[in-house]
């Protein structure tokens, strides 16, 4: 049976057709994050016959992931398989024609330049704003479009960012958010995830088959439980002085002094993260979602079943109870978003 036969229903869709399918089969997409959004984006693109996928994720499959992360099964939890690896194996059973590179690493300004080599499009499937602002600068610097996606509760949003054309994430948000809501802080339902993915992947397909005229151009936001849906015209947000996409862009989030830095504190079963400095009253309120919080004028700490985090005024955080930088970052970003 011909390789093209399997895509027959997609080729029948006139805006793709035979020529669109051939373009798709020669494109390379980087998916940053392989959790809820990432695994479903990867599945849809694999089924559609994308040429090559690069997956990057620093985490492994956990029991609480199964409620919404579609490629993973109970055995992956039992065997603690890294998400990028579990995803790659599942994807290869679905479509062996797709080339899949899986990296169990931290995507950051040091690793991104390698990851984006030969990449046509970057899909955002991350879970915190630190990485999204880095990704936003990488997109501008290397001139690769990226598709923002995020969800919590029954809400989600997506927006397609084309360097030199649309407003970028920095234009949209103006101030870097102190916290972003995460699935760990306020929960999430599966359909909200899949709806964000559907928006992201449709936009990806338009870019990959070079149907740019059909791009949505607006930011989409929805709330499935409360039946709200909006498409927001964000043209006005574009800022000519934007440090990420403006005329004199200097990509601030790729600069060393603006990055969260981590180090293992020897012999103390503790990782130190240097990040943003938080407003303590907001921080204390937020951390109550995760465990017992204590607070004094110098620090806020939260104790969960397995770890204790201590946040200092100067932006340092101790994650006690682990020697793994990957695990410390995972827990830290689950809490601060």
């Amino acid at each position, binding site marked *: 049976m011909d390789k093209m036969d399997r895509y027959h229903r997609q080729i029948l869709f006139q805006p793709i057709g035979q020529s669109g399918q051939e373009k798709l089969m020669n494109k390379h997409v980087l998916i940053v994050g392989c959790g809820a959004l990432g695994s479903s984006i990867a599945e849809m693109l694999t089924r559609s016959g994308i040429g090559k996928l690069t997956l990057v994720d620093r985490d492994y499959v956990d029991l609480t992931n199964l409620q919404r992360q579609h490629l993973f099964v109970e055995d992956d939890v039992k065997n603690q398989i890294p998400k990028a690896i579990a995803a790659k194996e599942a994807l290869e059973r679905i479509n062996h024609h797709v080339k899949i590179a899986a990296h169990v690493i931290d995507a950051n300004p040091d690793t991104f330049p390698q990851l984006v080599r030969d990449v046509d499009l970057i899909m955002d499937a991350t879970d*915190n704003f630190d990485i999204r602002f880095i990704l936003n600068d990488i997109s501008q610097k290397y001139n690769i479009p990226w598709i923002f996606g995020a969800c919590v509760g029954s809400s989600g949003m997506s927006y397609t960012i084309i360097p030199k054309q649309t407003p970028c994430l920095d234009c949209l*948000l103006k101030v870097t958010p102190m916290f*972003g*809501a*995460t699935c760990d802080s306020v929960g999430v339902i599966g359909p909200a995830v899949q709806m964000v993915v559907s928006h992201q992947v449709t936009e990806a397909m338009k870019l990959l088959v070079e149907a740019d005229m059909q791009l949505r151009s607006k930011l989409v936001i929805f709330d499935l439980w409360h039946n709200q849906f909006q498409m927001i*015209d964000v043209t006005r947000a574009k800022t000519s002085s934007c440090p990420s996409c403006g005329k004199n862009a200097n990509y601030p989030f790729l600069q060393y002094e603006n990055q969260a830095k981590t180090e293992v504190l020897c012999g103390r079963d503790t990782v130190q993260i240097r990040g943003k400095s938080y407003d303590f009253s907001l921080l204390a309120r937020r951390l109550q979602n995760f465990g017992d919080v204590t607070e004094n004028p110098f620090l806020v700490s939260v104790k969960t079943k397995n770890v204790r985090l201590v946040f200092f005024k100067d932006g340092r955080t101790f994650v006690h109870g682990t020697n793994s930088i990957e695990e410390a970052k995972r827990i830290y970003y689950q809490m601060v978003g």
Partner: protein
Amino acid sequence: MINILFFAQMQEEAGKEKIDLDIEKIKVKDLKEYLRNHYNLSQINESMIAINEAYALETDEVKAGDTVAIIPPVSGG
């Protein structure tokens, strides 16, 4: 009447997903101030505001009959 829609975590903070404000007109900046004070919204400063599905600046004016979306930073994925 101004129709305000809260998205994502704003709903839990506000205790509801939409409200109607009986105001003739108000600047976006002042609306944010009002919402922060009356609805205990910790992230209103970091939120995007849209009036009738168009991105709004701080100095824009909301008028009776408008629908305002309050879009907080969402980072789940």
